[in-house]
């Protein structure tokens, strides 16, 4: 029979495994969820039906013991709620209607059908709310299956309230096999599926989940509470049942006891009356004793002394001398006429048992008659034989009466005359205490037994323990079942509550936190279901926001520092144009646009003596601070060497040696250096791996200066660089650039390229260096479009004019308002000497007035140097002061459209200078503000 249940159980497991495998198949997986659920539900429903038949279950008479409930559980827990419900409904419906087909018992019809449907719903609900729509571990499955079966058992009671005994007999038989069978079925299915999934427990043992710890302890507490409650109530009920049974047995025995006593008393009284009558007629006591077959006939006088007896030895015995005999003295007081004593040892000799009866005599004294057991036994035997015949104790209990030799005397009993041991009552009556309840075996079954000894008979009552404990067992079963259900519901409820109140919230917070730690600092934790979580959320949020502030501050500081680095790098390159306003023999312009951060490009130019211009462009490998620092080093070294008058090739050869020293970072720099003799136009140059510059001849020819290049600087020690020379004519131009220009990339990944650069330079025509640089920059920007710029863009252009330079004169003034007139006079006198028209002098004078008064008022400088030079084309004036750095070209323009009342004072001066002069340039050099203005003549 166990085999049948196991086969049904494993049918479930096999189906679960099969369906699980199918779910992995893409073709099955493609089916909609609900279709799959219906398929699963129906298949499990079929298994449920199979389990319910006599093929899959065990017939126990009126009901089939089965594992039907396992099917909806497997479907619901492993595959999803809907399939569980469908399987439950199918299994339940079959069970309900099977009764009408005559293939299932009606007794548990409703209970079984209902519980199977319920189990389907329970599985669905548990999966959804307790297991987050995932299948549970096998241990949970086994627990759930067992509890569901217990619910099933309880349902049998509930639906059969009017016939609890039958229900109980079913439950007693079914409970263990069905609970275990269903547990095995669901457990096996879950284990099989887990094995197929190759689930490995990856959990760290030292870090239990809260829910696990919680469940563990909750389970421990609930089991302890459950066991304690049931042990206590079981103990209590056992005790109560015992007491109740004892009292039932004892009451019955008491009744029989009293009946026997009454019968024997009555019989003796009859005898004594007859003997008294005959004695009064003069019959001798000896004859009377013989005639009535009594052992003693005593005559006691009014003094209580035996005066006549059939027994010589008692003659003269004083009745008051013994406790037993003294009881008869009441007859002498005249209150009572008769006295019957029960069977007991005599006062005269306590080994002799007698029953005495006495009647008062008319002339005082009384006659006493003594019986021994055999004598009165004959008198009452018929009565005693009948007294217990129809008596029952409870349903199965009974009373037997035996004589002193423990032979049954109960009449009409088939065991009459037999010793109680021979009929199966294994009682050691002789050594037991009368009135106490003890356990004996009757025909092998344990019975509760008690007895009483009356008039030489043992009245023995027995009752089966099973009957005595029936109510107790029934209520214990129901209590245990109810307890399991209640505690399970409690467990699930508390678990669910904790999950909702604590675990879900913690999970929510953790999710947000992990997003925050992965960089999204803008998220906030917002769990407000209760005060504790609200305050935790607030704390986390304020921590994150503080952190965010710190990060923002740090980022701002780094940005600021990088910005400073960029500033320093940029300020290391000459950035004021025209750099040599007094020189008209060449024009030079350079621009550098760093891509986001500090880069490695640089340009430089400087006069060597009065007649040579050195200019270079370079690109350091890499980017960022290291490249910037290497660039500064390279720039300084090259400048030092070039200014010492060395030829370009020698500059590179020596610079390479110096840059190779301690170049652990392995950085290098490409560089193109030219030194132009301004009076002859002879250009000497050297190239260390840099892009060839473009030369534009005054006749319109444009070409790359394709001289053979040397290795990059700092690339390898001991390199010798080649010297190259070329001749520039008046009007020739040279354009230098870095690869940021030619390798600028547009969104379709095309390079700007050398060809395009050459064409653009050609297209620009004969324009000044500044305009050429702006033109190319704009062209590159248009080419790149929306694509991001990754490289620095650096370029430098020179036009060789071949003319002389402007002679400058200078004056040093104190930084005060009185100096304004001095400065104006200094310049206007110089201009007047050159016969420059008054109108221009006035304009220049206004500009000087504005600039000098501003310096005197606001800069805090100690002195102002005014330099001025005039040539054919223009007048150049330069103001140098050691005051606070201030760049007037950055000043906001005033709104000149406002009415008189809206006008604010200030701001007009610089604006006027800008408007009236042709050039206004500012630079900060060697701790001095250098402001240059130019006015074309």
């Amino acid at each position, binding site marked *: 029979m166990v085999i049948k249940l196991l086969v049904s159980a494993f049918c479930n497991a096999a189906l679960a495994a099969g369906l699980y495998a199918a779910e992995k198949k893409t073709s099955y997986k493609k089916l909609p969820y609900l279709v799959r659920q219906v398929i699963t539900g129906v298949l499990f429903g079929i298994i449920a039906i199979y389990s319910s038949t006599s093929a899959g279950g065990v017939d126990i008479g009126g009901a089939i013991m089965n594992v039907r409930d396992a099917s909806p559980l497997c479907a619901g827990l492993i595959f999803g709620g809907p399939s569980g419900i469908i399987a439950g409904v199918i299994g339940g419906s079959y069970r309900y209607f099977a009764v009408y087909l005559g293939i299932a018992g009606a007794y548990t019809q409703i209970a079984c059908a209902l519980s199977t449907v319920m189990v389907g719903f329970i599985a669905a609900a548990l999966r959804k709310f307790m297991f987050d729509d995932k299948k549970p571990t096998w241990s949970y499955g086994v627990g759930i299956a067992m509890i569901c079966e217990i619910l099933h058992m309880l349902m049998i009671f509930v639906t059969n309230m009017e016939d609890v005994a039958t229900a109980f007999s079913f439950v007693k038989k079914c409970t263990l096999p069905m609970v275990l069978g269903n547990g095995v079925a669901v457990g096996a299915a879950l284990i099989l599926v887990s094995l197929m999934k190759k689930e490995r427990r990856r959990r760290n043992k030292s870090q239990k989940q809260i829910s696990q710890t919680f469940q563990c302890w909750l389970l421990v507490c609930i089991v302890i509470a459950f066991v304690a409650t049931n042990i206590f109530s079981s103990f209590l009920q056992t005790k109560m049942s015992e007491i109740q049974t004892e009292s039932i047995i004892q009451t019955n025995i008491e009744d029989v006891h009293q009946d026997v006593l009454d019968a024997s008393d009555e019989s003796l009284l009859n005898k004594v009356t007859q003997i008294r009558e005959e004695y009064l007629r003069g019959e001798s006591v000896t004859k009377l004793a013989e005639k009535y077959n009594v052992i003693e006939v005593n005559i006691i006088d009014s003094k209580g002394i035996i005066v006549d007896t059939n027994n010589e030895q008692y003659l003269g015995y004083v009745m008051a001398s013994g406790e037993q005999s003294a009881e008869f003295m009441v007859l002498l007081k005249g209150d009572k006429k008769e006295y019957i004593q029960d069977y007991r040892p005599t006062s005269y000799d306590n080994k002799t048992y007698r029953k005495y009866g006495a009647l008062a005599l008319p002339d005082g004294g009384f006659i006493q008659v003594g019986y021994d057991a055999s004598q009165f036994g004959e008198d009452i035997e018929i009565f005693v034989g009948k007294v217990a015949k129809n008596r029952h104790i409870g349903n199965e209990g009974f009373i037997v009466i035996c004589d002193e030799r423990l032979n049954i005397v109960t009449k009409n009993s088939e065991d009459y005359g037999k010793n109680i041991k021979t009929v199966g009552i294994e009682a050691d009556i002789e050594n037991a205490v009368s009135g106490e309840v003890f356990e004996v075996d009757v025909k092998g079954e344990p019975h509760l037994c008690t007895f009483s000894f009356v008039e030489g008979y043992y009245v023995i009552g027995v009752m089966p323990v099973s009957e005595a404990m029936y109510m107790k067992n029934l209520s214990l079963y129901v209590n245990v079942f109810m307890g399991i259900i209640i505690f399970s519901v409690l467990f699930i409820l508390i678990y669910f509550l904790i999950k909702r109140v604590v675990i879900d919230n913690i999970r929510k917070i953790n999710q947000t936190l992990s997003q925050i730690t992965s960089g999204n600092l803008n998220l906030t934790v917002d769990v407000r279901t209760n005060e504790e979580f609200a305050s935790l959320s607030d704390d986390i949020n304020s921590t994150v926001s503080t952190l965010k502030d710190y990060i923002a501050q740090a980022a701002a500081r780094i940005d600021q520092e990088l910005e400073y680095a960029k500033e320093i790098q940029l300020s290391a390159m000459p950035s004021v144009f025209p750099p040599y306003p007094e020189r008209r023999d060449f024009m030079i312009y350079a621009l550098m646009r760093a891509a986001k951060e500090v880069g490695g490009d640089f340009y430089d130019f400087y006069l060597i003596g009065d007649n040579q211009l050195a200019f270079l462009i370079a690109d350091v490998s890499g980017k960022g601070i290291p490249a910037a620092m290497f660039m500064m080093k390279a720039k300084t070294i090259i400048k030092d060497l070039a200014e010492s008058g060395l030829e370009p090739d020698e500059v590179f050869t020596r610079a390479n040696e110096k840059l190779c020293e301690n170049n652990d970072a392995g950085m290098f720099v490409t560089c193109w250096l030219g030194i132009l003799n301004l009076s002859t136009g002879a250009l000497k140059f050297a190239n260390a791996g840099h892009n060839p510059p473009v030369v534009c001849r005054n006749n319109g020819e444009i070409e790359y200066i394709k001289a053979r290049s040397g290795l990059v600087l700092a690339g390898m020690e001991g390199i010798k660089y080649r010297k190259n020379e070329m001749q520039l004519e008046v009007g020739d131009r040279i354009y230098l650039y870095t690869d940021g220009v030619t390798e600028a990339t547009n969104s379709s990944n095309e390079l700007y390229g050398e060809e395009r650069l050459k064409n653009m330079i050609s297209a620009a025509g004969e324009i000044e260096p500044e305009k050429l640089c702006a033109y190319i920059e704009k062209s590159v920007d248009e080419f790149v479009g929306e694509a991001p710029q990754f490289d620095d863009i650096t370029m430098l252009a020179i036009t060789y004019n071949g003319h002389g330079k402007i002679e400058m004169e200078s004056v040093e003034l104190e930084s005060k308002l009185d100096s*304004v007139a001095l400065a104006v006079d200094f310049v206007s006198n110089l201009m007047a000497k050159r016969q420059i028209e008054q109108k221009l002098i006035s304009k220049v004078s206004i500009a000087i007035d504005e600039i000098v008064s501003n310096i005197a008022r606001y800069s805090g400088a100690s002195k102002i140097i005014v330099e001025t030079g005039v040539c054919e084309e223009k007048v150049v004036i330069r103001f140098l002061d050691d005051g606070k750095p201030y760049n007037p070209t950055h000043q906001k323009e005033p709104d000149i459209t406002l009415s008189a*009342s809206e006008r604010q004072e200030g701001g007009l001066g610089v604006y006027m200078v800008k408007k*009236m002069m042709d050039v206004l340039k500012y630079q900060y050099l060697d701790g001095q503000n250098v402001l240059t203005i130019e006015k074309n003549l």
Partner: protein
Amino acid sequence: MNIEKIIENEKVTLKLEGRLDTQTAPQFEQEIDGIEEGCKELILDMNALAYVSSAGLRVILKAQKYMNTKGAMKLIGVNENVMEVFEITGFLDILTIE
């Protein structure tokens, strides 16, 4: 610079001579501050004025604002240089120039 002041009833004429710049503007400002309460018309004669710097403009603006509450202010004899300054700075729109 030289400033000549002529008072005719409610009309005050200031003849400005030389440069109205940073140094001379305070002097001009004193004159403006010293204009009588009863003055309804202020004439600035600029025939002899070489040029005006922003410091001068400041005082002219002040005078204009003051006269806006009293009556009227008029500039006469404005030369090309000064006119250019007025033009650049948008003062043309504010001032009345004859």
